[in-house]
């Protein structure tokens, strides 16, 4: 390793250490009830199951930016004879910036992997979105809803979708350091037709979470 790399590493560790001492950090666990639907010319395939997740958020020193990292993994079992069971793993990094008291902008990068007995597929996309939020009951209750688009999606083995959008709605209730959340999300990917067959995919999930504000 060159001297320059060593210096970069030392600098990054120093910055991370100093930020670690200042940043507020919240971590949480989640349980998602997910349903995946896809049609690619062979009829509708439905699978559903449970995903477990870990996530952490922090608010960076300039306060307007909230960063979030999450991991989710689970199994979706076929709900009819035409489908196949698959495992799902997902990692995401995102950030939110407040535009006003009620409005914020979101951006995220998501990597997801579906793996079944037949094949494995990796999804990578970047998304940007807009959300509205409202605090109630002295900030104890927070409601939010948002829309996102995925302008850049890469799916292994198939072409990019020509429509990729998502919507979410969430409620969080905070008591002291503890926050209970429920989040509903729907992702839709419409791929261009190939040989007269159009592939459509949709993932709906209801995520129940609990978070603890570490500092």
């Amino acid at each position, binding site marked *: 390793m060159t001297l320059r790399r060593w210096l970069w590493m030392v600098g990054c560790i120093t910055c991370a250490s100093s930020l670690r001492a200042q940043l507020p950090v919240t971590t949480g666990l989640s349980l998602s*009830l997910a*349903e995946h*639907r*896809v*049609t690619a010319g062979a009829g*509708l395939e439905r699978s559903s199951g449970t995903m477990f997740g870990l996530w952490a958020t922090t608010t960076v020193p300039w306060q307007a930016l909230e960063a979030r990292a999450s991991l989710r993994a689970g199994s979706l079992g076929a709900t009819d004879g035409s489908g196949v069971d698959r495992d799902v793993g997902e990692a995401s990094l995102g950030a939110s910036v407040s535009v006003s008291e009620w409005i914020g902008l979101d951006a995220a990068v998501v990597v997801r992997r579906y793996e079944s007995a037949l094949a494995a597929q990796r999804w990578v996309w970047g998304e940007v979105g807009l959300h*509205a939020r*409202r605090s*109630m*009951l*002295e900030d104890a*209750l927070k*409601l*939010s*809803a948002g*829309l996102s688009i995925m302008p850049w999606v890469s799916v292994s083995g198939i072409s990019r979708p020509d429509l990729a*959008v*998502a*919507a979410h*709605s969430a*409620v969080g*209730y905070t008591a002291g350091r503890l926050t209970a959340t*429920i*989040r*509903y999300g*729907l992702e*839709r990917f*419409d791929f261009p037709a190939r040989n007269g067959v159009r592939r*459509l995919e*949709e993932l*709906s*999930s*209801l995520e129940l979470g609990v978070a603890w504000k570490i500092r």
Partner: protein
Amino acid sequence: MSLARIAVVAMSLTVLARPATAQRAPGEVLSRGVILYEELQLERAVVLLREVTSPSNTAATTSERVQAMKYLGAAFSLLGQRDSAVAYFRRMLERDPFMDLDPAVFTAQERQLFALARQRTFVVGVRALSDTGFVPGQGRVSLRFVTTQHARVLASVRRPGDTEPLATFRWTAEGASVSPWDGLDQKGERLPVGRYQLDVTATATADSASDTVAFRFDVGYDHEPLEDTLTFDPRSLLPERRPPSIARSQLAAGIALASFAIAVPTVIGHGDLDGTRKHAVVMAGVTASGGIASFLMLRRGSGIPANILENARRREEHVRQNRDIRARNAVRLAAARMVITPTGGDSR
């Protein structure tokens, strides 16, 4: 000039001179009489001094009369008319018990007769000293008393028109004395600012002769300027209750977000996939419940706890500041000097 003409001129001069003298100010006549006394033109001095003491001379002040009586007594003393001298000295003492003969000015013979007059006259007098005041409880009132003989003195302070004395004090004295009163009432508290009357009764220890005098005075206090207490401005308070519209707007927000969740499968989802709506329905129910709960809680009590606490803190701070101001004022008042101002001399 014939004897008759001289007599006519003399009579004319006398007749003309009387009105001229009568028109002169008593102070001027007194000064002239004193000069004549000092020049030992005693008969002429007596004429002028009697003019000052005459009851018909309404322009003469008490002080001028007293001075005239002193010099009349002294003049008669030098003229060998002892009884007249003593009589004038007594009349002088009755009007002003503080009068005395200065040894540097008056002879031993005059002072001897004055002493005789003091023995025969029993009077008590009171006068305020011209000083800058005193701190009640830490000094003596700025009053001076005098009795012409050894006497027991009883003095009481009361409000004019009241019979109940606020303070009573007694002592024994002969000649000039200061009062043993420390300026506090019977409860040990300061007299409020206002007008008071001091009734002094003296009883001679030798023959039980007594005399009384009343002295009216104003009580005031000289202290550092006091701070004004602060008035509380209600505009400095934060709103403690939310307007009713907040509850409605939160309900509306909850319902709007619930509607959004309900709409997502239809608007965002693809119709061909016929995606599940269960998640959306659950989410909408939770969201709407949040809005309804917020609405109900705000309707039940729309107080703003943070503002209520902050307002309580501001009120407490205001009370504390006023308490401190009152404490500082109390210290200044405790150190205030009592000032006694006579309002009209004494009366018997």
